[in-house]
């Protein structure tokens, strides 16, 4: 436990030291909110966007660079398993995502008079599922792409279209038909739906089950495909 706490604290510190992660997970969603004049329907989508930026956009580059720098190998000869570092990375992503989301929610309520979420525990559960789901996809990318630059690039290439097509950065209603249909097959879409359900107070059972399924499948794929060196 002592080791896991120390690893998590370190990962969080490093994330907070990364200007890109910090900006895109905290300031950027606020800017979008201002541009949309505090549109209440947009907030759950922005929360999904925040965790996708961290888990899918940033995490693959971080994990692949740990492998490339042989930091994972170095950890493997300590009493802790490098897998513990991955757990710490997930917790750090969840915490930074939570910080960014909380800031966004507070500003939307206080600054723009958005109606507060109806079911906070449900919203929290949806947030956790969505965040862990994004991280599991990030690990799949880090497992498949060998070098750090490549993993970072692929992470961005997967994340950017997804936040637009899944209805996170812009509502899917605004998309042309063909593009909207693509969204049906993207893993972030149930995340947006689950968060929207939590906000409005309706339990989105199917999206949440889907998210859990993607987490299991993604983690299994990452475990099967990951190369330590």
């Amino acid at each position, binding site marked *: 436990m002592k080791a896991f706490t120390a690893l998590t604290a370190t990962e969080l510190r*490093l994330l907070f030291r*990364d200007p890109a992660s910090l900006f895109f997970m905290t300031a950027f969603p606020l800017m979008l909110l201002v541009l949309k004049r505090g549109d209440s329907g947009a907030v759950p989508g922005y929360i999904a966007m925040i965790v996708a930026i961290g888990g899918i956009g940033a995490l693959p580059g971080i994990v692949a660079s740990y492998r490339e*720098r*042989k930091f994972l190998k*170095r950890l493997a*000869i300590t*009493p*802790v398993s490098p897998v513990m570092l991955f757990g710490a990375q997930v917790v750090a992503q969840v915490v930074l995502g939570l910080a960014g989301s909380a800031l966004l929610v507070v500003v939307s309520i206080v600054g723009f008079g958005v109606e507060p979420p109806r079911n906070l525990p449900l919203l929290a559960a949806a947030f956790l599922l969505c965040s862990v789901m994004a991280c599991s996809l990030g690990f799949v990318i880090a497992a498949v792409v060998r070098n750090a630059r490549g993993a970072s690039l692929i992470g961005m290439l997967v994340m950017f279209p997804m936040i637009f097509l899944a209805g996170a950065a812009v509502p899917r209603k605004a998309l042309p038909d063909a593009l909207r249909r693509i969204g049906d097959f993207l893993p972030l879409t149930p995340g947006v739906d689950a968060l929207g359900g939590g906000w409005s107070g309706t339990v989105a059972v199917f999206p949440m089950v889907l998210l859990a399924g993607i987490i299991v499948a993604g983690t299994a794929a990452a475990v099967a495909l990951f190369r330590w060196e």
Partner: protein
Amino acid sequence: MEAIEVRDLHKTYGGTRAVDGVTFTVRSGETFGIVGHNGAGKTTTVECLIGLRRPDAGTVRVLGADPARGRRALAERIGAQLQDSSLPERIKVAEALRLFGSLYREAADWRQVMERWGLAPLAGKAFGDLSGGQRQRLMLALALVGDPEVVVLDELTTGLDPIARRETWRQVGDLKRAGTTVVLVSHYFEETEALCDRVAVFARGRVTAVGTPGEIVARTGTASLEEAYFALEGDNR
């Protein structure tokens, strides 16, 4: 007492026999050198010692345990500095030492380790901003922060300038005086000769000689360990 026992170790990677029947023992408290040219099987052997690789055949015992089975328990008692392993760019020196200290059940005081290895002035510096010598010193300190009984140092001084190398040699001497068993892997014969009580000379995945540097030199009728290495190479060809 023997700290490390390696008997008839074999390891093959995709058709290449990296280690082909290696046998040697390291006594508790001695500084033991593994010397030979690149590709001689030194690093593979060491990676079997610290549980990073599983031998194809042969036995390895470190502090009485099999590293391939009891890796975790053994990791509490071994420290290692690996060839070109590094840390995240933005982690600071003090943070790295504190982090690694917290990974062990019983660790040395990381602040003391930082002081002792002259890293205190660099405490707030990010890993990415350190010079090659400073990085090396930090990685060495990280190998010791768990207060190990056995320390494995792989190519400790490669890439260091002569002053930093001499300084590192002095530090290895300090370890020895503290009673730590040290396995020093190197392709510098001069370094091995100066620091090690006993040496295993590696060539093409085999050990061509084991003994004190003086014994090996005398046995081959040469003037230095490096010459002895080439004399042994000639015998095996």
